[in-house]
């Protein structure tokens, strides 16, 4: 393999692993949108909250396993509680009301999280070492490999859940047509709550892997910004789309950083995904895998 190719391979591989970690967070967004039609602008803040919960538990000398168990329970409870207290009263209201509510939640979390759980940047050490892992001619930091593996595992689990499990099929029915789902005896509100709780689970794991990579402070919420190009690309309601969208965004980012940054002095990585997002909006506004909505009037 020539040096150029090796460089490209390394960029793609690194981009793909980061991309999978984006997918993991985007998955939380998609689960909620798919089941409840709510656009969650607080997904990044969910991840930040999860990271803060983990470092707080670890700060009390508890083992990592305890941290993960606690953060899962907290985030599940948080998802259920949020749906019950904030979102259920907004059922049947215009979509913009729900959007405003999630923006409000985001602001509250960004203010309240550091206030209660600590403002300084804290490390979230995972027992995986610092030794880079070689894959072919490229090397990856172990946290990226772990993040990618966790993301893939989640996609396999959710894929099984929606295809095979009774609850997952019912959830697809709710996503497809709420009124008919009700006529089938499906308690739609219960499934809304479950969707938010699942977003909590995804955010909990997202908080662990992203917190381990970036350190935990209020800036961790910024990973949520990457959710939008990912889901616009993949389709707001497509789980497979979140996976592919994340991979594409991660790779585009990495290639932009590798090939364009030397010429323009850096920073292309941050806007390349949005350029791609705008292009996709122009060509396929419902995303690559999204459901094409045809309005009949």
């Amino acid at each position: 393999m020539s040096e150029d190719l090796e460089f490209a391979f390394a960029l793609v591989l690194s981009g793909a692993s980061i991309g999978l970690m984006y997918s993991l967070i985007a998955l939380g967004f998609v689960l909620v949108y798919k089941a409840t039609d709510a656009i969650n602008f607080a997904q990044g803040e969910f991840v930040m909250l999860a990271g803060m919960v983990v470092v707080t538990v670890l700060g009390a000398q508890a083992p990592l396993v305890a941290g993960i168990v606690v953060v899962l329970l907290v985030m599940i409870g948080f998802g259920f509680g949020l749906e019950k207290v904030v979102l259920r009263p907004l059922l049947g209201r215009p979509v913009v009301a729900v959007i405003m509510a999630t923006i409000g939640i985001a602001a509250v979390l960004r203010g309240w999280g550091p206030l209660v759980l600590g403002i300084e940047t804290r490390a979230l050490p995972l027992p995986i070492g610092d030794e880079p892992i070689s894959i072919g001619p490229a090397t990856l930091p172990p946290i990226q490999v772990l993040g990618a593996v966790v993301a893939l595992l989640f996609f396999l689990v959710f894929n099984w859940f929606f295809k095979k499990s009774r609850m997952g099929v019912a959830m697809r029915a709710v996503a497809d047509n709420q009124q008919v789902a009700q006529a089938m005896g499906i308690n739609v509100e219960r499934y809304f709550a479950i969707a938010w709780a699942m977003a909590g689970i995804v955010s909990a794991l997202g908080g662990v892997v992203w917190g381990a990579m970036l350190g935990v402070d209020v800036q961790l919420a910024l990973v949520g910004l990457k959710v939008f190009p990912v889901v616009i690309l993949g389709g707001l309601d497509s789980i497979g789309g979140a996976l592919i969208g994340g991979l594409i965004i991660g790779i585009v980012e990495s290639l932009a950083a590798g090939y364009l940054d030397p010429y323009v002095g850096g920073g292309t990585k941050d806007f390349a995904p949005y350029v791609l997002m705008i292009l996709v909006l122009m060509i396929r506004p419902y995303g690559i895998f999204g459901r094409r909505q045809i309005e009949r009037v």
Partner: protein
Amino acid sequence: MVGSSARRMAAQEGDYQLVVEGVSKRFGGVVAVQDVSLEVPRGAIVSIIGPNGAGKTSLLNMISGFYKPDTGRVVLEGQDITQKKPSDIAALGIARTFQNIALFSGLTVLDNLMLGRHVRMKSGVIASVIYWGMAQKEDIAHREACEEIIDFLKLQDLRKQPTAALAYGLRKRVELGRALALDPRVLLLDEPMGGMNQDEKEDMARYILDVNQERGVTVVLIEHDMGVVMDISDHVVVLDRGRRIAAGTPEEVQRDPAVIQAYLGTSRSERA
């Protein structure tokens, strides 16, 4: 107008399986349904007819819980269900189909039917993880119930097909099957033959009669095809502009001057 078997049966208190008592529903300034009552004898086929905008679907929506009536109540086998959620009403045994086919289009025929069983499934999520075997056993029983409906409606070859790909008449049939999967005591059908050709209508009429006679399900249906309505109904209720203007056997309703005026046109000979 005494003399019809359905009405005689209905004259005795307690024979009504489903009773709608003077329900009204207005949307803003528009009165969709005004003080309408409906008595459905156990095991009967009752048709609701009327011109467009007469309030038929609104009435059905109040029975299945999608609309809460402003006045009046809905009673199923002595139990007031007026304020219950649609999902609870479905669980109590009132299943329905929709005017515009409302299948879950991304799912297969079998998955659509299995969703109809959802409400009959006992083991919850946690239980199905802990007692995996029990849930599996239950799944098999539900699968058998669905297979039986598939045989009944002759959908054998379409089990694994996504419903979006099916022809119109077949989708209507699958929707009937999904409603049957709930093991309903009362089946509400909103224009089960709407948009069908003559052959499909005849098939559907036969299925409705079989559902009623072989499976003992009480049927309330909205239908525009008068020929079908008069053929299969025990009892017909006529709505016009939100009000009930007549009720009785098909023969009685056909003779009723108010009905002829409102619905069938001015000349009786047109019906013959």
